[in-house]
């Protein structure tokens, strides 16, 4: 399997493309450029624009505009630079590349724990992060939860699908009566 191709593909599938924002920005810039061209040619329009800009000489308005523009600028710059990882993980198998949504992993682990530990599925939740899945169990009042069993079940489910994730177990202090 061509390593480079897979790396590109998996990178593509685990990061957001930022298409929508880019299109919106493009349309806004088109409007701006069109306005600019119109102003360059039309003298009367230019006079009107200059009059409008004079309003900005009021320091309060100018500061307000500055702050709004600044915040928006920061948002855009961050949006452009942050990786935008999708909640998915990329794994490689011998022959193919595998992508699994974190939600699928979480459900699989929680289902396996609920089954193995005989706890209702509604009382088990799993949170998948980059390197770790945290399984949270709400125990039945009066029935001690076997943390080891929860851990084993979670790890078995992960091992079965060969998903490398560390397991953390949290048992809620407050249990459910029934």
């Amino acid at each position, binding site marked *: *399997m*061509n390593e*480079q*191709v*897979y790396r*590109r*593909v*998996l990178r*593509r*599938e685990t*990061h957001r*493309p*930022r*298409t929508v*924002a*880019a*299109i919106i*920005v*493009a*349309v806004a*810039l*088109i409007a701006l*450029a*069109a306005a*600019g*061209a119109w102003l*360059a*040619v039309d003298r009367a329009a230019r006079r009107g624009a200059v009059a409008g800009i004079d309003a*900005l*000489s009021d*320091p309060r308005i*100018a*500061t307000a*505009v*500055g*702050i*709004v*523009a*600044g915040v*928006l*600028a*920061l*948002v*855009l*710059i961050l*949006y*452009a*630079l942050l990786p935008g990882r999708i909640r998915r993980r990329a794994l490689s*198998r011998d*022959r*193919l*590349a*595998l*992508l*699994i*949504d974190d939600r*699928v992993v979480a459900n699989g682990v929680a*289902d396996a724990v609920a089954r193995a530990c005989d706890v209702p599925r509604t009382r088990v939740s799993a949170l998948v992060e980059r390197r770790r899945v945290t399984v949270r169990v709400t125990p039945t009042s009066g029935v001690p939860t076997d943390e080891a069993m929860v851990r084993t079940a979670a790890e078995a489910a992960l091992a*079965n*699908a060969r998903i490398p994730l560390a397991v953390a177990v949290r048992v809620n202090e407050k249990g459910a009566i029934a």
Partner: protein
Amino acid sequence: MNATNRVLNRALILIAGLLLAGVAALAIRPAWADQGLDAAREVRRRMDGIRISGLESLSLSAIVACAIAVLAVIALVWFVFAHGGGRISTVRRSPRRLGEVSVDRSVAEEVLARPLRERPDVIAAHLSSFRVKGSRTIRVTVRPRRGADLATIIHAFENAVAEWDALAGEQDPVVLHLAEARLRDSWSSEARVS
């Protein structure tokens, strides 16, 4: 959606952000604005004097500004419409002595996606292909049912890929995506007995 598009997307957003930052800076520190505007006015004054024969009513500055704006608009419009490509209907192409032998995605659908789609532990499976780094990649997106054993699905797909490899005569890049069920899937009218 190819890699270049993604980089351009982010670049454009970054440029817009920087422009806005410039506007913000100018608004808050008019001193810089005055300096910049003075310089700009000086340039414009010089260019205003120059006229191109035949276009007497427009100063050079106006023409240059217009030209820049038009180029920008063309580039941006191209940018908007350049998205949406990347999906291809041919998954394999082999030039042979007597002509080209190509394979449509419908064949890949039958061999790679249908076996998964028909499984009781799978809600939906669909196939798409795209070019990455010059190679055509096939991606099958599978939505497993709750409680499905992922290892079994992966194994079943590996078998399908083996069949595809035998037909292709080589190993094309293949991606299996196990995705969470979407709201849309509950509206699917397929009746399942599981």
